[in-house]
């Protein structure tokens, strides 16, 4: 009998291993509970109260906040619509552009590193600087973009002052900012596809399009799913970009969920209502993710 067994004869090897495992993961688990699960539970509780951040007065109101948001607040549905339009505009554009760039830049040629860096640079650029520069470029008639358009005979709109064009502007500038990240993920996935498949297909006389459709695209499936999920979640969470470029305007045309939650909580000090909206956003994003995963499972 070993010394250890003498100290704790009631512990089986399995129990000891389990205990050690729990000990090893406990720091991460503690962080997860304190900084994720705890706040999440707190938000659920706050969403059932009317809590004024400034006066610190809190009253339990049950589901009133949810009832108000879902059935009585007309702004809320415009905000949800804006968030969906933003996501529908951003996700396909971002993914298509990322894939196109990845296809062009996944092969080795002189200057490839330079181009990859150029397209990835906006990802690491400060969001504040990015938004301010674009806001400047997208000014009315005197703006750089409209000056360029005027040069080719096009009268550009007042980008950030017309609701529909403002949405287009925030989507496109966001895509340019973030496309580099998805491009890198696609490049990694493309480089992981064995060259033999393409060589074999060529021997069989397959065209580029056929190779892409029958070999590359299916093999990119798991990566595409990951990209689609994270880009969709990111598009619903967008805040800084909207805050800096349009402040939700004009005419609430770019007022998206995350910004609306911020407005309720930190400008109107209504933390209870903001928490209820955050829970609704959580359910929407979770629902979309589950649907995407289910669709993928069905396809495979």
């Amino acid at each position, binding site marked *: 009998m070993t010394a250890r067994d003498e100290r704790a004869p009631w512990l089986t090897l399995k129990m000891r291993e389990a205990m050690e495992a729990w000990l090893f993961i406990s720091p991460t688990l503690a962080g997860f509970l304190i900084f994720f699960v705890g706040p999440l539970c707190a938000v659920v509780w706050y969403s059932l109260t009317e809590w004024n951040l*400034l006066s610190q007065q809190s009253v339990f109101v049950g589901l009133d906040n949810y009832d108000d948001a879902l059935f009585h607040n007309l702004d809320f549905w415009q905000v949800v619509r804006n968030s969906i339009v933003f996501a529908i505009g951003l996700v396909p554009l971002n993914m298509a552009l990322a894939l196109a760039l990845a296809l062009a830049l996944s092969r080795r040629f002189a200057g490839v590193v330079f181009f990859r860096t150029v397209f990835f640079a906006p990802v690491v650029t400060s969001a504040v600087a990015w938004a301010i520069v674009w806001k400047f470029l997208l000014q009315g008639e005197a703006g750089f973009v409209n000056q360029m358009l005027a040069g080719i005979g096009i009268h550009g709109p007042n980008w950030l002052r017309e609701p529909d064009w403002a949405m287009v502007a925030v989507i496109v500038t966001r895509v340019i900012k973030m496309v580099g990240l998805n491009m890198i993920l696609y490049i990694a996935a493309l480089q992981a596809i064995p060259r033999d498949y393409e060589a074999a297909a060529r021997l069989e006389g397959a065209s580029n399009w056929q190779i892409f459709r029958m070999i590359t695209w299916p093999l990119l499936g798991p990566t595409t799913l990951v990209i689609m999920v994270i880009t969709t979640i990111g598009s619903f969470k967008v805040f800084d970009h909207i805050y800096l470029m349009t402040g939700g305007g*004009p005419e609430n045309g770019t007022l998206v969920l995350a910004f609306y939650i911020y407005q309720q909580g930190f400008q109107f*000090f209504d933390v209870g209502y903001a928490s209820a909206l955050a829970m609704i956003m959580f359910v929407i994003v979770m629902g979309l993710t589950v649907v995407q995963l289910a669709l993928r499972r069905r396809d495979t």
Partner: protein
Amino acid sequence: MKSVLKSITLSMLALGMMSSALAAAELRFTVWTGNEAHLAMLNGIAESFRETHPDVTVRFETIPAGDYTQKLTFQLAGGNPPDAGWMMEDAASTFANAGVLEDLAPTLNAAEGYDLADFSEPAMGLWGADGKVWGVPFSTSPFVIFYNKDMFDKAGLEDPLALAAKGEWDMETFQEVAKALAEATGKWGFEFKDGQGYDTRIMHALMPPIRAYGGDVWANQECGFDKPEAIAAVQQLHDMTFKDKSIVPPGENGDYFSGNSAMTINQISRASLMPDAGFNWGIAPLPTGPGGEAPVIGQAAIVVFTAGRQKELAAAFVAHMTNEANVAKMAQFFPPARNSVLSSEAFTASNNLIPAEQMEVVGNAIANGKVLPSHERSPQLLAAMKPRVDALWRADANVEESLKTVCAAIQPLL
């Protein structure tokens, strides 16, 4: 024996240090200025407080103006309130209503030689009721017209100060002059305050002309945007922006301080930017309108927070900071609300950037002006107004209809 003595000495020393630490206190005071001259003046006032409170120091903490009210709220909500601080007029009602501001009346009334009645009554309007005082205004700053003298000369026009002296500076002349300036210089005739009249400074853009026309944005819990006076005033601004093309339109940049607009509306604290502007300039009163003279005043006050741990001491410091001598000192940057200081020659000579006759414009505006409106639900009101006002600033907008939708949106909140 030696070690016993050593321990006694050390204990005494430690106790002595603890007691001096207990007597010494530091007040944390939040401000939104980072200007060195402002801070030097404030530190001077804090230093003079030590004559009566030798162990008290005051630390001025700068929070940028754009984030000020929000960060202050976070500090209060997070249980880390400053002892005292500046507060903007639009936050006054919200904070007072939430019960987070300390009543300063007992301390101010008890302070030796402090004459609370010396503060002009309209200036105190936002900051107290029923004998309670939640804040002491330190800056009662009227909106004035800043003009680029060089651009007026180039266009061969009389400047607003000269026109005002002749009694000809009214809304009609303002429109004509702005148009003539834009045509003659190829730049803009007028820019809203800090170029933010379509975003964060909607009220600063609309309020002065509406009052000049004899209207108000709201009064007695009733929206005033859809009244004929307001409609006429906003229609004029709309025409100037889209027909005359003399006001910098939404989405364009026409910074007055860089010489891209001939006129702007602002407060005299912005005069500190003028030495670097590189052109001759002046200030003039706001143009009069069918409603007569209607100066508009922006305001800021000093408040003490109920949640602060040193409320009495902070209130005593506010009493010191706003006594007659210190208000006179602050007047070089922040127009005072004390009648005694306002009427003194020292005030008109207090700002070395602005000539005495132009400072009289400031003094008159304070005496006759009306403070910008405040409301306990100001943030909600502004958010409800914003999208409807956005719709107003389209070239093809129907001003009257747009203003009616503004009223429909804010009336339930009033």
